[in-house]
């Protein structure tokens, strides 16, 4: 019963704020990339930086990793885990970061 009420309350809230949820999701999935690509996307060493990447280039590159059109060591494994909409949202975000 307690659960049902909780769910009802949260669901009502979510319906009222779908845009916010999208932003939080993008923020969080984009941050997963920083584990390999460095703090705020600025890398040390062999792994390339992703901060300040051109959005169209980022989206195309991720789509090509996912399809296999662009050969990769590890990035096909990662790119295949995300949707095109997420590539676009992350591309917007990474383009906004300082190189």
């Amino acid at each position: 019963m307690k659960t049902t009420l909780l769910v009802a309350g949260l669901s009502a809230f979510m319906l009222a704020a779908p845009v916010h949820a999208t932003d939080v999701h993008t923020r969080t999935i984009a941050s997963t990339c920083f584990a390999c690509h460095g703090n705020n996307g600025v890398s040390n060493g062999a792994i390339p930086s992703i901060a300040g990447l051109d959005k169209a280039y980022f989206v195309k590159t991720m789509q090509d990793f996912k399809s296999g059109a662009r050969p990769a060591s590890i990035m096909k494994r990662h790119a295949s885990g995300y949707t095109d909409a997420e590539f676009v949202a992350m591309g917007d975000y990474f383009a906004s970061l300082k190189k």
Partner: protein
Amino acid sequence: MTINRRDFLKVSGAGAASTLIAGCATQSAPTVAKASPKVVVVGAGFGGATCAKYLRTWGPNIEVTLIDPNDNFISCPISNWVIGGMKTMADITRSYDKLPSQYGVKMVKDYVVAIDTKARIVKTKGGGSFSYDRLVLSPGVDIRTDLVGGFKEAEAAGKVVHAWKAGAQTALLRKQLVNMPDGGVFVMSVPTVPYRCPPGPYERASLVADYFTKAKPKSKIILLDGNPDIVSKKPLFMGVWNTLYKGMIDYRPNNAPYRVNGDTMTVTTEFDEVKGDVLNVVPPQRAGAVCEMAGVRTAANDNWCPVNLTTFESTTTPNVHIIGDSVSAALPKSGHMANNMAKVCASAIVELLAGRNPDTVPVITNTCYSAVSDTKAGYVANVWRWEGAKGYVSQPDGGATAVPDELNKAYNESWASNIWSDVLG
């Protein structure tokens, strides 16, 4: 508490997904937003330090206190490189300085001795008392030295170490290997699953073999595995054991040590009694001790902590979140996973404390490189997406390399530098 999610699966699409996860994401509902809510984070490793940093980044109004007894961050990933002689302790040690100076995290250097989850207070050995709106526990693993007879005595005498937490034992094990004569025997054990860093023992054996090949080529390695087979990256490791290190590594599955003797330098398993010049026994593991203090480490979960995996809130105790190795889940216990769980957890806490609902479809990734020599490495990488009742689903193209190469060694080194900067600023 078990929540029936089935009803919420009948709908599909983006809006529906929100409803679905709302049903299972939180034990405690979003609270009325406070001006300056308090979060206490216990443990400043890959999970805790990351969580503190991202809580402050995404929730600048949140007062974040990070409690840990260590002076510096010493990385477990790359610590096998120190044991193999490819890196020094200084190379894997980083300062915590940026967390307070650039992110406003309040650092407390102390041990946690008590947690009152009803009054929401954490107490430390030094007499500190810290109240919280939400608590994050990221203590890593508790090494069960009590489960291997004689281990505690041999460890206290400085004769046998596990070196499964990077620090003084890492340096001591390296010293023991350096002092070992050519033609000596290095005996190492692999704990039964689940344990911290699945490929770690096999990487360690490989890098010690690399060192022996160059410095002490007559030496041998006996690897006693408590599991029936190599737990992670089997083709990668078997490949180099059968080529680069042919004849050097004696791999013995189903051989968990139950006794070690530091005087006779003997390890006893159910099948074998093995003598060595250097013994590196890694006992079984469970969730960190602070999880017991908070009552979130449960016998029913084999002494790990059951959590709601979209927020990492304990399923037994509201307002307590657990991340990293201590979590009970079919997910690998790695520093990279702890870092990713920390972000999902921080994101959820920021939203919950602001009176909003957390991300409904979180994503967690793992990237785990293993070096097999001083020039070559391989990896395993996976992306897990939350799919409601199915939980985290590993996406189809995840997997591991079978053949190591120089490029992945360069990426391995770059990965370490980059994740340290992501964890610590």
